């Protein structure tokens, strides 16, 4: 652990129902982080992702504390349960380990530009916390992804210019990537993370060429994807070492404002 420096900016823990995951509990993630030199991770549990944060924040706080301050958590805002989520957010705002909000338009069935997300954006703006969102490209076999295409976030990105928005999965593997890159270029407050199965050839090189390097964050999407699948993708990419350092650590510390505080 002594030389751990990487920050995984997009992880999960808990047992997912949709697939068999041999390693998915926080302990397994921590063990893997130790092996790979990952100092800390930012994410949520699986129940939160589907339901929202009303019931899960105390558990996430407990996981953070038991992890020695390494598993930071995001509160998932479900727009269909907006008032309950905002109340839970207000309570958790100053808890140790709280790192921001997460939204998932595809899982929650509410398009990203929908006004029902405004309470989350307002909350983030008033308290200077970031929002991580799922983003993807329109998909033939998964129509719900249409709700999370990057362009749909633009109205709220423009309306709340101080809210740092991380487009998880950088818009996915299709046309959504172009939109994500455009938003990251055009808006100071938009960032991209590398989580998920965007295993595209020379992805890291391409993004470093396309957007300012401070806009790119390393993320794994564990346990859906193993951090090892992304780590070599970054470490062995044909980009300068300084860019790798920013992607693997510094950008996440800046966006999630967790660098300055020594936790636990």
């Amino acid at each position, binding site marked *: 652990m002594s030389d751990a420096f990487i920050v995984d900016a997009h992880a999960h823990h808990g047992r997912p129902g949709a*697939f068999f995951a*041999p390693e998915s509990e926080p302990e397994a993630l921590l063990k893997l982080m130790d092996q790979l*030199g990952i100092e800390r991770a930012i994410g949520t549990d699986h129940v939160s992702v589907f339901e929202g944060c009303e019931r899960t924040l105390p558990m996430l706080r407990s996981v953070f504390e038991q992890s020695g301050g390494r598993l930071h958590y995001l509160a998932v805002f479900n727009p269909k349960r907006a008032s309950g989520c905002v109340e839970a957010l207000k309570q958790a705002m100053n808890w140790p380990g709280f790192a921001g909000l997460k939204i998932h338009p595809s899982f929650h069935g509410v398009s990203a530009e929908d006004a029902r997300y405004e309470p989350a954006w307002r909350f983030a703006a008033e308290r200077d916390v970031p929002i991580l969102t799922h983003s993807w490209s329109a998909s033939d076999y998964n129509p719900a992804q249409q709700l999370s295409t990057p362009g749909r976030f633009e109205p709220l990105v423009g309306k709340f210019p101080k809210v740092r928005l991380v487009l998880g999965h950088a818009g996915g593997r299709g046309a959504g990537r172009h939109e994500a890159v455009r938003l990251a270029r055009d808006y100071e407050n938009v960032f991209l993370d590398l989580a998920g199965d965007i*295993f*595209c*050839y020379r992805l890291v090189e391409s993004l470093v060429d396309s957007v300012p390097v401070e806009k790119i964050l390393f993320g794994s999407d564990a346990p859906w994807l193993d951090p*090892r699948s*992304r780590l070599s993708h970054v470490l062995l*990419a*044909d980009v300068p070492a300084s860019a790798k350092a920013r992607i693997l650590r510094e950008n996440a510390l800046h966006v999630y404002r967790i660098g300055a505080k020594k936790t636990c």
Partner: protein
Amino acid sequence: MADRRREVAEKLRFFDAGIWLGEPAGFPLAHELPLGRLGEALRERFLSGGLVSHWYGKVSAQDGNAVLMQAMEGCQEDVYAAWTALPLLPGESGRLPGAGSVPSKVKAARIFPKTHNFSLTSWCVGGLCEWLVSRHMPLFIWHVETDWKSVYELARTFPKLEIVVETQTQKILYHTRPVFALMCDCCNVRLELSNFAGQGFIEYAVREFGAERLIFGSFLPVNDPLVPMGMILDAKISETEKSLIAGGNLRRIVNEVTS
């Protein structure tokens, strides 16, 4: 961290089951890998060679195979061809596994039952499977081109047929329960790894099925070889197991194919 990985990657001599020529279909951000850049692309991603396929084989098996062989003429790399196969029917003309002579460079066959509209049942593909078994030639199949029941039945009907299930063109993650059950029951099924990237999957598969059942593949140039490579480089398995998965298993299969 990068230097150590580079060193191990060079040492493991990755041999890739999934190198594709031609224009990738259905991946708007992917670009064709020009043949002239193949060697450079392999070297920069620590690949020593592998099996090359052609996207055109999905449009037309025979024409795709012809285009592939033309493209590979004079190719200096340590690469072999994977031909697209069809059920063997009387009168089906053109370059196909099982129909006429097959060049010695051809070391694998791949089928697209959904795209090419045929059933994976023995009364339809039995002739092809028998031909493949007689030549020790492996059968590759994308998981999206079939269903698990059909693969299971095929594997049980032809226990000597080497079947390599490929984890493309959508992630295999949501299919882990049937995939692992299939691997448990059918020793002649192997899994290609380009999208086998769930947390702890490599260790689990090695522990439950053995390293011999896993085949390194990248799906280059749609996907980056560094992704499955990273899963192996950092896996908590022995060096021997890493070596088998990185290329030992596929090299053995390729070497056993008879012309």
